[in-house]
């Protein structure tokens, strides 16, 4: 009984972590900036590849992960400068641009690094509860998800950069008039989103197969979580991920993976129908 209960809690935490981490970079790039980033999965893939390669070259795993996130962030800044910068006034075209980047990145990685590279071993081993054994690393993932949420919140709400970033995105002309270097803010914000995606890839790298198409495993979950969360990503993402994780885990545990997957998508449809502005829109309904 205890084992079953713990098993369920563990499962919800695991799914929650996956949804939050999938969504973390996208919450900024899509949720805040409005860029429909279909290359989100490829930033994740980039983070994972750098992590795996540098860890195998001898770098300690935490540093390798950091390097993975940083690389994705730098790539993000370069892409912002070369491409995305020209699209802020026509955000729909970002679909085509990021789709194109995704094609180039996936197939380019296949050409450069081959169809797959040798993975890493998951750290920390396992522990037992009531006769069932669990992977300790997945608890770490859940903790990392919470930390990242808190970090994003702190960065955008409590720091000067965060205030400038939000001001720039809400009203660039006004921000510029007040002396904010908006080009730089856009680039940094986009780079931050990309770095977070890279961090997600880095964190999941030891648990997944490292292949060029690995980003696609995250993409649906990421968009779904961000959109269900609603316009205010700081408020919405966590409750959205919590609700979706709970329902998906319950359905998966009771009726198997198929119903879990379908149930997640049906939940999204139902939540959006009930709360047409997402969860944060509903939470802020009085102030509007």
């Amino acid at each position, binding site marked *: 009984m205890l084992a079953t209960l713990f*098993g369920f809690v*563990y*499962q919800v935490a*695991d*799914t929650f972590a*996956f949804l939050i981490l999938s969504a973390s970079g996208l919450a900024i790039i899509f949720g805040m900036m409005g860029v429909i980033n279909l290359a989100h999965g490829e930033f994740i893939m980039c983070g994972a590849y750098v992590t795996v390669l540098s860890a195998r070259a001898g770098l300690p795993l935490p540093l390798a992960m950091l390097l993975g996130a940083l690389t994705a962030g730098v790539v993000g800044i370069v892409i912002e400068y070369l491409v995305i910068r020209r699209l802020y006034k026509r955000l729909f075209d970002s679909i085509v641009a990021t789709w194109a980047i995704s094609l180039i990145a996936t*197939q380019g990685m*296949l050409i450069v690094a*081959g*169809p*797959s*590279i*040798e*993975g*890493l*071993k*998951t750290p920390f*081993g*396992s522990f037992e509860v009531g*006769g*069932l*054994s*669990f*992977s300790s*690393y*997945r608890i770490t993932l859940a903790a990392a998800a919470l930390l990242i949420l808190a970090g994003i919140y702190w960065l955008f709400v409590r720091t000067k950069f965060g205030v400038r970033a939000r001001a720039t995105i809400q009203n660039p002309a006004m921000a510029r008039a007040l002396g904010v270097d908006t080009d730089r803010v856009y680039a940094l914000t986009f780079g931050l989103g990309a770095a977070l995606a890279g961090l997600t890839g880095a964190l999941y790298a*030891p*648990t*997944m*197969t*490292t*292949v060029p*198409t*690995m980003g696609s*495993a995250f993409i*649906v979950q990421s968009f779904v979580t961000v959109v269900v969360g609603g316009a205010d990503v700081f408020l919405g993402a966590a409750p959205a991920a919590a609700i979706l994780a709970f329902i998906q*885990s319950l359905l*998966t*545990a009771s009726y*198997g*993976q*198929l119903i*879990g*997957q379908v149930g997640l998508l049906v939940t999204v449809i139902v939540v959006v129908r009930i709360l047409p502005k997402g969860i944060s829109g509903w939470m802020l309904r009085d102030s509007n």
Partner: protein
Amino acid sequence: MKRMNRFRFKPTLCATAIVAGSLFSGAAAIAADPIKIGLLEDQSGNFAIAVIPKIQATELAIEEINAKGGIMGRPVKLIHYDTQSDNTRFQEFARRLIQQDKVNVIFGAFSSASREAIRPIMDRYKQLYFYNNQYEGGVCDSNVFVTGAVPEQQFSTLIPWMMEKYGKKVYTIAADYNFGQISAEWVRNIVKEKGGTMVGEEFIPLSVSQFSQTIQNIQKAKPDVLVTLLVGANQASFYEQQAAASLNIPMASSVNVGQAYEHKRFKAPALKDMYVTANYIEEIDSPESNDFKKRFHAKFPDAPYINQEAANAYNVVYLYKKAVEMAKSTDMKAVRKALESGDICTDGPSGKVCIDPKSHHQSHTIYLVHVKADHSVEIPKVWHDIKPYWLGQAGCDLTKKDDTSQYTPSNPPKK
């Protein structure tokens, strides 16, 4: 409301546009002397990992044949299109090979879905086609020959062996589509037949990459043997995740190791105690195999792994050569007749294999591959000359009656 800019449309523009449009028409194919082999394989996309060795093996076989004077003195020309792991590309290029390139035979396809995408086209144009890949079995099609291993060859050997060694309680996790479901059905039937019990069966959509719940379910059911019929990069993540959770149950599979060499790509001990029945893997230490590896690596020094589908793809070229030589023609009806003679065999990387006339499938040497804790492999048992018996017994006889169906144990041919 913003008004759209508009132009006067000049007839000159118009003419340019139409000329540009006529660029669509390709150059007409020129009928020539060589025997043309069409190849549809995924060099890009999801399946590239298992397919690239197939393409290389096909190129190797054709190069060897050409070096020895071709087929009946005619050189062999390979026309390969990259199908990008995309079913619609298979459809487009199957038609292109048939209608524009007018090839003598078509080889290839990895996923069963891509094979099913082009089979209606092969049947509509009566095109001779070889599916050179392991699959869920049951295709009884007059125009199609299959050289990969099928469930009766892989499971009738694997499952009894595992039950004898580890115990009679079996749990299956399988990809939730045709391959997984049909293979799981085979496992279920064999377990029952041999007096074992299924303590669990779980089907997993192809998009799933996170397996914590599945790992819990397996632990609760306490099986002696875990049959993993997982497919694709997403699902391959299961192995690392089960190792991290210390699942420690011997595993059996018909797809892993032999196709996408998971034991090379994952850190040990993710695949510890995995048992696979494959009709070829690179580690096989026999004179035929070593000779094949030497030639393969001479041509492709950077090849990461030579998988079982590479051996299938290699054999198919030689089987076709034999059939053409027997028929003394590339006429598809004559070649089919030769292939149905029962005398078409080749000595490939895993020894002698032959085409079964009734079902158009192929006999195989089946190797039991055991992955050890350090991911080195041993081969505890070899079964020679395992026939693709099921379709023939179930009532598919293409030498007597034409057909284009795919059958399963629960949906056999109507007698």
